[in-house]
């Protein structure tokens, strides 16, 4: 398979919304015949935890529409413009936004993150966890799913240096 194209991804974000791009691109590239590696660093390590507890926060994110995933069409169409100040004061606001996003995802036939992660593994996408940030954030290797490789920047470049596409997410 040395003729296969290579895709190298650096995943640095640890929220529910930003968990999608690395897993979608990696699984699709693998389906197209690419050899794929993802290097998870900083908050991206959250995507490798045994128990995923990813959340999304609309606070300070003016690009995120706040829409309801249920009710009649006119109600779903409303973009709830909630001021940052209110968002920051209401307890459980992030948990609510996360629940709503997960429901929207289900309604639209979009895969869940655990499902996409599993599809990546089945397609032999290689996951590498950044050892330095594992230590920096006080994680243990046991916090993460099995079958990971732990390495540093040099490990990443070994593959990335020969890659056809390299993405920082």
């Amino acid at each position, binding site marked *: 398979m040395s003729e296969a194209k290579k895709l190298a991804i650096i995943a640095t974000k640890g929220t529910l919304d930003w968990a999608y791009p690395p897993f979608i691109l990696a*699984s699709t590239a693998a*389906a197209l015949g690419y050899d794929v590696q993802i290097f998870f660093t900083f908050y991206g390590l959250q995507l490798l935890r045994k128990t995923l507890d990813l959340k999304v926060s609309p606070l300070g994110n003016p690009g995120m529409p706040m829409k309801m995933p249920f009710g009649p069409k006119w109600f779903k169409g409303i973009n709830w413009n909630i001021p940052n100040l209110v968002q920051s004061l209401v307890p459980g606001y992030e948990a609510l936004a996360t629940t709503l996003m997960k429901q929207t995802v289900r309604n639209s036939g*979009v*895969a869940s993150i655990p499902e996409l992660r599993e599809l990546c593994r089945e397609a032999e996408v290689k996951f590498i966890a950044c050892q330095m940030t594992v230590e920096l954030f006080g994680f243990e290797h046991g916090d993460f799913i099995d079958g990971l490789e732990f390495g540093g920047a040099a490990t990443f470049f070994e593959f990335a240096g020969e890659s056809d596409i390299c993405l920082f997410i």
Partner: protein
Amino acid sequence: MADKELDARGLNCPLPILRTKKMLNDLTGGQTLRVVATDPGAVKDFQAFAKQTGNELVESAEANGEYTFILKKKA
């Protein structure tokens, strides 16, 4: 008649492509797979998938919001 069928209705990107790839693995060269999808993005995606993987897109049709693709597995 295609050798295998995949119902990808209601699924969104990238699931139709991922499931298609999985099913193609079970076919032998020259056999065909018929996929039905509702994701409008699938039209371009199946063209791109065929072009990049060498599996031939024999048919691509749309009727009543459903997209039908027939892929022939690379020999």
